[in-house]
């Protein structure tokens, strides 16, 4: 199978992730959708790496995994902190600053 099909799949995953961020209300689920977008980018990188026959894309995928892990640490810390002070992780409830 041509590796370009993986790019189409990745574009689909990225779109699902982006719409998840926009429509879901729970901060954890929003965050999971963002992770899906990062993984879609990873799949694209690996597929193009295979197509072009160089390793840049695969190396980048490793970097992205490490960055995603670091982002999980920071993100979950912030979301858990919000949950502990409000007993809700809904992004709609966090609206103290609305005009």
């Amino acid at each position, binding site marked *: 199978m041509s590796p370009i099909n993986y790019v189409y799949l990745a574009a689909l995953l990225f779109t699902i992730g982006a719409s998840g961020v926009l429509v879901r209300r729970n901060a954890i689920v929003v965050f999971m959708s963002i992770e899906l977008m990062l993984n879609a980018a990873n799949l*694209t990188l690996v597929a193009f790496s*295979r197509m*072009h*026959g160089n390793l840049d*894309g695969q190396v*980048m995928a490793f970097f992205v995994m490490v*960055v995603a892990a670091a982002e999980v640490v*920071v993100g979950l810390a912030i*979301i858990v902190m919000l949950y502990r002070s409000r007993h809700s992780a809904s992004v709609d409830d966090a609206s*103290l600053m609305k005009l």
Partner: protein
Amino acid sequence: MSALGSAGAVPSLWMVAEGEKLKAPDIEFSQLSPTLIVLGVAALGIVLEAFLPRRSRYGAQVFVSLLGLAAAFAAVVALAATGSGGTKAQIAGMGAIAVDGPALFLQGTILLVAIVSVFIFAERRLEPSAPGAQVDSFAAQPASVPGGEGEREATKAGWTTTEVFPLLLFAVGGMLLFPAANDLLTLFIALEVFSLPLYLLCALARRRRLLSQEAAVKYFLLGAFSSAFLLFGTALLYGYAGTVNYSGIARVISNADATTDPVLAQTMGNDALLLIGGALVIMGLLFKVGAVPFHMWTPDVYQGAPTPVTGFMAAATKVAAFGALLRLLYVVLPGLRWDWRPVMWGVAILTMLAGALVAITQTDIKRLLAYSSIAHAGFLLAGVIATSEDGVSSVLFYLAAYSFVTLGAFAVVTLVRDAGGEATHLSKWAGLGRRSPLLAAVFAVFLLAFAGIPLTSGFAGKFAVFKAAAEGGAGPLVVVGVIASAIAAFFYLRVIVLMFFSEPQADGPSVAVPSVMTTSAIAVGVIVTIVLGVAPQYFLDLAGQAGVFVR
């Protein structure tokens, strides 16, 4: 790695014959020393945090941070003095990092901003002190629930979050890398390295912790969302060009090398990859810059974050992000300029007008400054659109001028306080000029600089940017910019009128007497504002010499 790419069959790429040695990369440590020093000192700060007793951490952290930032600034000056900014500009770290004029100029600016920010972070006179311990404006124990038992105990014990200094240094390290990144991978890593500490710093306010936590969640979710877009754009550009190196992509776009590679010929023919990829990467950068329509996070985050962090973020993030945007548009995508210029025209016009118009309706001084920063992002974009050497150097000058005004303005905001902490509502600022003429006069200087009144740095910066834009064929943009400046001048002057010509309220705020730290930070802001306004020529020349990118 890209040299390997042309080697025949795919499997040979990840197999090495027995006995064959892998070649280690060459790293030019002296060229990279500013970033390395800052990140090294940040790691040292973590170690200090782990091993020093609580009472001696504050002094050690402040000392080490200032020393590290000063050493990094000295390294930048040494590099510039030996010609790395001009004739000897080069690409270091195996093509990952450019050491050239714009990079060094912006790194120097970011480091100076960071030094002043450490002073504002370290201020301990403003909050009422616990017995035996003075505290700063960061939470006693960020992990404790606001209003809970843990918070009460930590506050009573006089604890402070000294981790803010290593976090600040990590953010600065990423920001130093950001405008110097010379491939898309480094760009993404630098973006994350400076964003993640900023998300945390936003959540650490001592007062109004719910607001602060909310700001951190919003900043984090939207920031991660935008960096995912940037990463996907990176992946598409890699698919288009088969490399993530800036000059490599630029060569493929301009079709300079006749390719014999059938795959590359196929992906190069696919303009969708290039256009969508470029648009997504630019979108990620415009988010960090705070340009309309990617500005939604700015007012909430600026309002909720602790004010010292807001000042640092408003000044340094803008410098770093505009540096990266300039390099991307001028080095990677100059071949696409007929495609991105119309889009950036629209973004710049929207940003200038929306920032200035919405700022009029604001009633909170931090939100007002946030919208003003959006409007200023629009003025800077006008300089970016000029696509000339003058455009680059005028943006560099504007960034240096603007960042010190912003830092000074937010430092003043930390001083106007009432029983609930900082009094940020505009009605509380009424009559401040009668109660505390000096502070109000200083703030008026900053507001006049924001408005771009002659004899302040804001005028020199705006003039340089608009001149470059007009010469670069963006005349209508300059007209819109002048109109937006006039609208913006209205609400800056309204605050000045409020401070000097209205009656003070009976329950108005008091002006805290800061220690020498905040005083010197504000003094630096005023001095830079006036010097760059009265005698800008030396600094314009400096920025002019730094206006050429290496590729």
